[in-house]
């Protein structure tokens, strides 16, 4: 996550600059916050694209960035960047930004999760049936567990597959696991 202008993000991606980004390399190696100047970001890169980076940052007025490593309880990691043309933030500002980074990342992730589930309109029983299927239970076993008829369980699973825009139950379970609708 960053406060980069949308057009900077587009041009950055069009030039495939992320893979050899020093910021990404730092995120993979350390959880320590880091202040990155434009000069540092445009130092020699393994992909030789430092001139492109320097040009883009100058074009969009990025002189300094503060990068913070963040994580979620499920182990997902990410990075939040605050960038701009101002001077390097002092320690007090870095502490504030670090606090904000974690809050922001957590909130955005929660919104994304809710949005995924809301968009599919799955009912709790449909999710339950998907969950038990992912755990290796047959429709008959799920019916016993949930106190339903096998016919009803199959109905829930068929509906779930349809709502997830999937073509069969294996597809539905795999997609539900990937989207963390079930775990």
């Amino acid at each position: 996550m960053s406060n980069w202008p949308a057009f900077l993000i587009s041009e950055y991606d069009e030039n495939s600059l992320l893979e050899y980004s020093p910021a990404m390399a730092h995120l993979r190696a350390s959880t320590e916050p880091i202040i990155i100047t434009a000069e540092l970001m445009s130092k020699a890169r393994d992909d030789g694209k430092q001139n492109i980076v320097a040009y883009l940052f100058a074009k969009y007025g990025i002189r300094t960035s503060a990068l913070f490593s963040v994580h979620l309880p499920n182990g997902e990691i990410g990075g939040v960047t605050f960038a701009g043309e101002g001077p390097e933030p002092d320690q007090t500002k870095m502490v504030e930004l670090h606090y904000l980074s974690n809050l922001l990342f957590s909130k955005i992730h929660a919104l994304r999760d809710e949005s995924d589930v809301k968009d599919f309109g799955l009912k709790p029983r449909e999710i339950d049936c998907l969950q038990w299927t992912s755990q290796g239970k047959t429709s008959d076993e799920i019916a016993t567990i949930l106190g339903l008829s096998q016919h009803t369980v199959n109905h829930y699973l068929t509906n779930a597959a349809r709502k997830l825009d999937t073509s069969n139950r294996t597809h539905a379970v795999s997609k539900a696991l990937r989207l963390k609708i079930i775990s």
Partner: protein
Amino acid sequence: MQLQFDTNPRAYNPLDPESMELSPTEVLDAISRFDAVGLWRANLTTGLVYWSDIVYEIYGMEPQKGAVNVSAAIEAFHPDDREVVSRCMEEAANHKTGYRFVLRLNQPDGNYAWVKSVGLYRKLDDGTEEIFGYIQKFSAVARSVTILTQD
């Protein structure tokens, strides 16, 4: 570690053991003698997955009867690889195709082992549709030799 995707069409190159005066059984023995091959299948209609005992062994789990806990099976992969595992099965089940991945599987000692898994679509005579395949752990080190001393 960067993930590499390859979606290039592949020509079908069937093994032809008979042309080498070998039986399919002998070929399978050669493939699996030094690195055990676990077999699995996923019924697209029921959503249930079944493993051979060797797959449990590769995962470091006790073999069980019945269908597999797919959630646990995916959780056993490296966190960065889990979504890829789900995505592979998702795509194969949806498009009735196949995949191969080489990814990191957690082991009982806490380290990760590289495993290769191949999945292919099949339709049985009774109309049952499945994704089936194998999983194999890489245990060989580059430039190493293993001698079979007993049969």
